[in-house]
């Protein structure tokens, strides 16, 4: 639907503007074929209003033949053809209108030749008037397109910020904090030195999380160091139930990765694996470079009797979202449940970092 036809107020504006265009047309007709002014206006004003609706058809032609990426010969010829059609239709309306006026309005006396001359003027005026309308429509469309582009830019920015916030909030899982504080509370009575160590570990973990989260890219080594702090805290809670196996290729630790990806994967492994098992189990962390790819694997045993998880859970979804935020298009995150093991594999392009000192 044409934007001007969509609202009655705008439509009224179109009619009034068109009626005003009728005045110069009436003047031209009056000069060429002298006649009383009211008679000239009586013919010209309704004709211009009718033409306004014909000229609005430029909207569909303009949308079909966009000039946003430059003016093409095709667009020009399409518009010229449309202009000729518009003026022909206009003249076709003008003929019966003129005849009707001659027959019904007293004092509206025009010869057949005069009517033909009027229609000639109409035919000639129709082309530039239509083209004017086409130019106006092109202007409108380009303004609209630039607004839409601006809106899109803003929208992507907002989505990216939201995702970032969500990811950061998820990073600092409140239950992890509450449980850690409870463990510290317990240690204060029985093992004050252990309580101190845990306070220090928790503080270190939080500080590192915030520092890494503020950067665009970190090394896998830095991510692994954060994971070690995290595991140190969880070890106090889970004791012997939590065991960790590491198979990390030194070459892999120098690779650049988006920050805060690894720790959520390890947290997931504990939350949905170790925590469900009476005897606990081993979380396995692997990282190695394979050709141009960095492969990071986090694997954990699962309780086969635990209710099957639907979808991939909040933790993995957050990691996926972080990958999107950081525009890691070549990244690939997959998870598989094989037997009693749950394995998450993260593939990233292996890009060696400058040792992670950049900030």
């Amino acid at each position, binding site marked *: 639907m044409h934007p001007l036809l969509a609202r009655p107020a705008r439509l009224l504006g179109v009619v009034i503007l068109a009626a005003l265009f009728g005045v110069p047309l009436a003047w031209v007709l009056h000069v060429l074929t002298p006649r009383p002014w009211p008679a000239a206006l009586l013919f010209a004003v309704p004709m211009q209003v009718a033409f306004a609706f014909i000229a609005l058809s430029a909207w569909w032609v303009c949308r079909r033949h966009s000039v946003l990426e430059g003016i093409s010969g095709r667009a020009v010829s399409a518009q010229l053809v449309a202009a000729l059609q518009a003026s022909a239709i206009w003249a076709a309306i003008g003929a019966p209108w003129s005849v009707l006026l001659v027959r019904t309005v007293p004092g509206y006396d025009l010869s057949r030749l005069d009517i033909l001359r009027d229609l000639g003027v109409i035919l000639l005026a129709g082309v530039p008037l239509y083209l004017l309308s086409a130019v106006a429509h092109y202007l409108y469309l380009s303004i609209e397109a630039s607004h839409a582009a601006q809106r899109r830019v803003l929208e992507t920015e907002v989505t990216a910020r939201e995702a970032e916030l969500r990811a950061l909030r998820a990073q600092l899982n409140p*239950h992890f904090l*509450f*449980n850690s*504080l*409870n*463990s*510290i*509370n*317990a*240690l204060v*009575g*029985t093992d004050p030195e252990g309580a101190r160590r845990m306070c220090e570990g928790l503080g270190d973990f939080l500080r590192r999380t915030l520092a890494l989260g503020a950067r665009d890219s970190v090394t896998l080594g830095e991510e692994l160091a954060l994971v070690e702090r995290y595991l140190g805290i969880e070890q*106090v*809670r*889970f*004791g012997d*139930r939590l065991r960790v196996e590491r198979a990390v290729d030194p070459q892999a630790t120098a690779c650049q990765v988006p920050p805060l990806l690894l720790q959520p994967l390890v947290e997931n492994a504990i939350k949905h694996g170790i*925590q*469900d*098992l*009476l005897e606990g189990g081993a979380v396995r962390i692997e990282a190695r470079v394979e050709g141009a790819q960095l492969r990071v694997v986090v694997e954990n045993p699962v*309780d086969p*009797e635990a*209710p*099957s998880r639907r979808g991939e859970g909040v933790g993995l979804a957050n990691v996926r979202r972080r990958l999107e935020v950081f525009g890691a298009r070549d990244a690939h995150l997959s998870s598989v449940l094989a037997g009693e093991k749950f394995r998450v594999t993260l593939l990233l392009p292996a890009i060696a970092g400058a040792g992670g000192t950049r900030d």
Partner: protein
Amino acid sequence: MTEPMRVVLVDDEAPARSLLREYLAAHPDVQVVAECANGFEAVKRIGEQAPDLVFLDIQMPKLDGFEVLELLEPAPAVIFCTAYDEYALQAFEVHAVDYLLKPFGRERLADALERARERRALAAARVAGPAAVAGTPSAGELANAARGPGRYAERIVVRDGAQVHVIPVERIEYVEAQDDYVAIHEQGGAAAKSHLKHQPLAELAESLDPARFVRVHRSYLLNVERIARIELLAKDQRVAVLADGRQLPVSRSGHDRLKELLG
């Protein structure tokens, strides 16, 4: 009070248990009779000890705190201890004495203990036995209420003497009413296991997703995924044939329910 208050501590994290033990040492009328690191142990030890009070964690392997309660009859007085505040409403539904959010301090624990003492004194004054209290909801009803409307059980817990079975609902083939019990038949052909649980069929049906389990007969609740076909034996007499060939009677209203669900 002359009789000491006998308590059981249930938490899968050792530091959390040691904290409770330390706090409780300040209360001479409290005696810790058992410590359990998981739900299975809890069901067993609480059943043996019949304690006056249980400190119960919610998130635990195998059986969560609510499932532990469901398996215990009569249900003991409970103080929940958890880092999650979203279960507070459920805890209220199962008549918990109190709900402690980790981390908590000595004073908060002392308050909770005081409530437990009051409740115990009240119960002692009400000379009648626990079973005589009219209108006391069953553990299953409590569990249904605790789960909240629109949410259904993902697994069924059954106690068989000292053993506890956890049956994921997708493994259930059908459930059969047998007097005051239900027989829960697991999938698995000839070697299929079945478990007896003391619960009315209607109550169990209420805890399961009506889009997956249909009451095809007064005595049968059927997993719709396991139906191979419905056969008409005579006028208004139908049977549901399961994937393994077993046949279950389908009543007229059961057939209506099936039609409504399967279209």
